[in-house]
């Protein structure tokens, strides 16, 4: 198969199993986002793919070639680090050129490629600047350019936007998504933020305690999370039982109606979100989430209609 294949990969630190028999496939040109709370093993999985930690079992295959025991520097896999890990003793251009230099590319070539990348990430003219004076967003762009410069087969991104403030994160997320698609770059993107993952990925993998619980397109995972942990991670906080089966109540399954709904509840919170209001409704002691066009004062009784086709069954 072409692309990245990880098979039954296990990484443990002493007693602690950080990655537990994880298998996944990323086709060439696609972006897989690994999401999950911190400590779920997603970064460790990424580091194992990069060759920075040695797995205890399992295999890592790129385009049919097993690379499990290949040294990091020979894998041709780029990694964008969480806190940039820029070479503080070098200029912006020298950081970007590093991988090219290691590959023994001619000096003139290096220069051309560096300029290309500076332009690509929107940092024209930054080449001779020192790393120290860069803003968070600029450092992020340099880190991306550095990782992309040697044209890696596979690009790994470890929480690339974690150190930015919210506004910058949204902006750079969109830009990153556009860039990866433009370059047709195969990538694995690790983040704890589901919005970030939805914004960038062709496929999402949700990890929990070292295990990969669910893989699918963002829409698939959101519509059909399959397990309670995944359901909660994508924001379906209401779990109900019906005919001995359990379901996650997606927010699109619930509508506020004038009368004779399926359920009655009392509004506990009403938050303005611009184009609509987010309601938290107490239904027999559980909190339900619904969206509505108009504000409803907390304390009001409401009727709720439930669309059974939009309930996500849980195993």
């Amino acid at each position: 198969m072409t692309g990245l294949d990880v098979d039954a990969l296990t990484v443990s630190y002493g007693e602690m199993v950080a990655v537990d028999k994880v298998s996944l496939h990323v086709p060439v040109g696609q972006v897989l986002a690994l999401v999950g709370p911190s400590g779920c093993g997603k970064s460790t999985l990424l580091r194992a793919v990069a060759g920075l930690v040695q797995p205890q079992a399992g295999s890592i295959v790129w385009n049919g070639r097993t690379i499990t025991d290949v040294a990091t520097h020979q894998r041709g896999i780029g990694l964008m680090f969480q806190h940039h890990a820029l070479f503080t003793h070098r200029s912006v251009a020298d950081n970007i050129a590093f991988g090219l230099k290691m590959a023994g590319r001619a000096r003139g070539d290096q220069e051309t490629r560096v300029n290309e990348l500076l332009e690509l990430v929107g940092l024209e003219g930054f080449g001779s600047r020192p790393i120290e004076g860069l803003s968070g967003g600029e450092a992020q762009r340099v880190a991306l350019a550095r990782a992309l410069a040697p044209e890696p087969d596979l690009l790994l991104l470890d929480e690339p936007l974690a150190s930015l403030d919210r506004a910058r994160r949204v902006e750079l997320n969109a830009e990153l998504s556009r860039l990866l698609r433009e370059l047709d770059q195969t990538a694995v993107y690790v983040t704890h933020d589901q919005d970030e993952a939805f914004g960038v990925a062709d496929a999402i993998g949700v990890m929990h305690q070292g295990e990969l619980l669910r893989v699918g397109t963002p829409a698939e995972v959101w519509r059909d999370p399959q397990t309670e942990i995944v359901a909660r991670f994508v924001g379906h906080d209401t779990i109900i039982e019906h005919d001995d089966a359990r379901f996650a109540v997606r927010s699109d399954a619930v509508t506020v109606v004038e009368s004779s709904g399926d359920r009655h509840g009392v509004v506990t919170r009403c938050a303005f979100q611009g184009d609509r209001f987010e309601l938290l409704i107490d239904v027999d002691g559980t909190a339900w989430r619904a969206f509505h066009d108009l504000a409803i004062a907390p304390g009001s009784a409401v009727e709720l209609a439930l669309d059974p086709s939009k309930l996500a069954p849980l195993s």
Partner: protein
Amino acid sequence: MKTLRSAALAAVPATFVAVFFAYPVLTLLVRGLGQNADGVFGVVTGERSLKIVWFTIWQAAVSTVLAAVLAVPLTWAIANRTFRGRRLARGLVTVPFVLPTVVVASAFIALMDRFGLESGAFRLRHTVWAILLAHAFFNVAVFVRSVGGYWTQLDRRPEEAARTLGASPWRAFREVTLPRLRPAILAATSVVFLFSFTSFAIILILGGPRRSSIETEIYRYAVTLIDIPNAAALSIVQMTAVVTLVMVNGWLQRRAVGRQGLVGDRAIAPRTGRQRASLGAAVWGTALLLGLPLMVLIERSLSSGAGYSLVHYRSLGSKVRFVPVTALEALENSLGFAIAAAGIAMIIGALASLAIVHGTRFTSRLLDLGMLLPLGTSAVTLGFGVLISLNRGVLDLRSSWWIVPITQSLIAIPFVVRGVVPVLRSVDPAMREAAATLGAKPAQVRREIDLRIGARALATGVGFAFAISLGEFGATSFVGGRRPDQTTVPLAIERLLGQPGDLLRGQGMALSVILMLVTTAVVMLGDRFHPTAGAVL
């Protein structure tokens, strides 16, 4: 694979230290314990020995207290006040500390000469006071730089909290600040005690023939009386004491690091007239105190009979009695040795630092300790050990030119390693990983990341090694004494100062001034790269 590579990296420095440090010291131990009929015990419990041990301890203690007291004003000023020339003050206060001990001794002889303290009611010559003052002069920098550096970064909020709770400034200092400074003060105290305990040249030159510490006594037995077993026995006492002190010091240093919230430079500019006056008094008072002996040294080197002239400097090229080479030849010898010693210290120090940072836990710990041991061995013990052990087969280096720079480099290597290792340790490991993901081989990672980032610290360490070699006296007095034509500058100075006659003494002073200027220049140049003295202290 990783183990193999790190073992190869560690092998060179480990072998060097094993052959040129561990083997000589172990030989000394075996000789001392084996050949002496009464055993070490007999020598050590002799009346003379007990007196010497006691003197060594109490002079070190008093020297330490004296240095601490003299350091108070400038430490306070540097820690709490910003002023023009603050950086310069920090740099200059280090000068006495980096000066060769023979130069400090010369400066005090010059001082006694200038102010007539060689005899009479205020006689300083050959008294213990001369030794104590010289030690204090030498070590003030340790307190100023380590306690001052720590203090200035200390979070001031606890002190401010104490003030809001009703404590006077003095009370807040005593109740809150002083206890928080204690780790730094204790660490500095143990360093100064160690230096004073192992002091050699100052006691030998200023103490006169009748005053002896363990260090000078080893020299007396080994060189003057040629009584190897007794010298070896005393060396064991010295080694035991020094190893204990180094261990205490290491423990205190570790405690001093990271115990309190350090928040960056907290000094503020003086505001009131009174604040400005006390700041001025502290800075200028200390400058006068530390500058005076050196000024007088220069003045004496220029004074000849009636007036001032360059006669002593002009005579440096001519041969005098008691010194086997001319002063200029000695200078040439010293520079050659210093270049070689700095080169050895650079290679061994860099390899050792890389191996310590990248090695497996075991090699790393072992090498770290191995590289620091020479620091904890007195120079006299080291020189003596080398002299009696490297005398067989391929290791018969006693008459080799290389024995001098090799021995001197052993004293310098710990300083290189102590400067470079923390810098390498502070490198974000992700930076090395980033280099690897970009295609850098392990060797390339070391070269492109470690060596580049460590280069400044290494350059400073090498400069320091150069300076140490130039001024080294204790070990060189053993290993360098065997080839009279290879006499170094410090050995020549000691000879010149030890002989009667104004001309010889004047030439000794002139040579001291030259050594002082060269050493200061080298260290100041190094300090521009990276404040090693700070790292070392």
